[in-house]
């Protein structure tokens, strides 16, 4: 069984966002990068399958700038076997469509039984690449999967349906799943893992030049919220807040 995990590097979630001089993108000069949190959940799901069945091969695939290998090594240190690095210095501003095309090309060539993505990369917050990838590869797709297990030629995927329901899907392999947070906490890379990761192979590919479909015309900071205001202390403040909600906010 070969599992591909699509991993994106994104700005750390506590980054201060500054707009670049072009007015359409992020100023990345002082940004610290991390593996997108949902991709770590996807990787953990893959690694638990590998823990139970040593024949499983877990391959990381990432469209990322040529110099960005740290996040790939992090995934290898967590336990992935190898990585495919599709080099693209514009990876961070690529639209979902172009990103999915590049990933699809690499995955088609390498072959995979199961492809896992995060439900969304926490940079542009789109939640599309996994599904677009599935349609490009003509594979079935289930989104926002909380838990999964392999059962013969199928993957059994559990997701939250609307209104608090729990849905279970049986999906024939190969398939694409997008993963959200479940009960499986991503493992930390230990020292042994970090040492081993240094020797694991990273295959390098050049991204095919493609034009984006979706163009960012402007990027701006949101309007500031008016400064907060403390109305009062304890139970005594409740009636005043109720009055404000009624008369000022008109929500009651």
């Amino acid at each position, binding site marked *: 069984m070969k599992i591909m995990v699509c991993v994106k590097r994104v700005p750390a979630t506590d980054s201060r966002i500054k707009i670049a001089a072009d007015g359409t993108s992020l100023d990345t000069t002082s940004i610290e990068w991390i593996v997108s949190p949902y991709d770590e959940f996807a990787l953990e799901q893959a690694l638990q399958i590998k823990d139970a069945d040593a024949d499983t091969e877990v391959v990381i695939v990432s469209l990322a700038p040529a110099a960005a290998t740290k996040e790939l090594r992090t995934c290898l240190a967590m336990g992935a076997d190898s990585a495919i690095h599709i080099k693209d210095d514009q990876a961070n501003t690529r639209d979902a469509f172009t990103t999915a095309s590049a990933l699809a090309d690499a995955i088609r060539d390498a072959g995979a039984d199961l492809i896992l993505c995060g439900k969304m990369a926490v940079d542009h917050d789109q939640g599309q690449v996994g599904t677009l990838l599935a349609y490009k590869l003509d594979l*079935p797709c289930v989104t926002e999967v909380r838990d999964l297990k392999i059962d013969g030629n199928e993957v059994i995927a559990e997701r939250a349906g609307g209104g608090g329901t729990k849905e279970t899907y049986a999906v024939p392999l190969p398939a694409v799943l997008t993963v959200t*947070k479940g009960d499986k906490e991503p493992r930390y890379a230990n020292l042994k893992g970090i040492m081993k990761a240094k020797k694991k192979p990273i295959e390098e590919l050049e991204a095919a030049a493609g034009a984006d479909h979706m163009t960012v015309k402007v990027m701006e900071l949101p309007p500031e919220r008016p400064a907060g205001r403390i109305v009062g202390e304890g139970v005594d403040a409740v009636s005043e807040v109720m009055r404000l909600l009624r008369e000022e906010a008109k929500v009651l």
Partner: protein
Amino acid sequence: MAGDILVVVEHEGGTAKRTSLEALTAARALGGSITAFVAGEGASDAAAACGAHGAETVLTSDVDIASRPAWAEAIANAAKARSSKAVLLSNTAVGKDLGPRIGGLLDVGVASDCIELHTDGDSIVARRPVFAGKALVNVTGSGSTMVATLRPNAFGVSEGAAAGNVEAFSTDAPTKGLGAVLRDIVAAAEKKIELTEANVVVSGGRGMKGPENFHLIEELAAAFGGAVGASRAVVDAGWRPHSEQVGQTGKTVSPTLYIAVGISGAIQHLAGMRTSKFIVAINKDAEAPIFKVADYGIVGDAFEVVPAMTKAVQELKAQV
């Protein structure tokens, strides 16, 4: 703008969802003619509301909506048949799943979770938050159709009647993305208001001390007719399910009123709720960062303030 805009209308037993009426309202502002796409049992019952909110044409489809790939394909086919310039959905559990599928079928990208739409000449521009709302972008697509999902509560609803002519849209057998078989659905113990669609959200954090105290949060939410949210600290501790987590790695909510109880206001939490219209914070630490964004802050003990507020809301509601 000339041309057709296809709006995917979700409904519950024939009653169009408010989020879908928002999408119809947003479509009207773009100009052009509006086609509503309604599927599932009771679809034709939703037609009148679609007409009242601006749909010239209401396509009713008998596609099996239990199959998302089939549903998406029927919508994509309708968009092709009508050469739609845009396909609008709500960024609900359903819309989030369908949107990228339709994008995949039409071979275009999707503008997800949009908070504004406008036209620029003949193209549609969508405004959407990025970096968890720490920045906003205006995007435009180069394809012939723009697929966009709209953030609940961001657009508002107004009426504007149009013909609302009902036509049955016959669906070919789906061909793409099939294979996933829904084996089982376990219903929720009780029907809950979707967190992302609720008008009022009351969230509890680590200040609630333990899962056994969350009934206080639930009671306040119930008094407002709202939904319960939680901070990640509380979800990680296993006090509340992940489906209730608000924040960068949880849900983004934009209710009219957000009440944060015993939540410190970490940047990743603010990311999920800072676009709420009004924010109330209840925290015993006057220095907690949540007070920087709270329109109305109460410094105090949640265990005293929350029950008092629940009582006040109940009394007020009893009067009207």
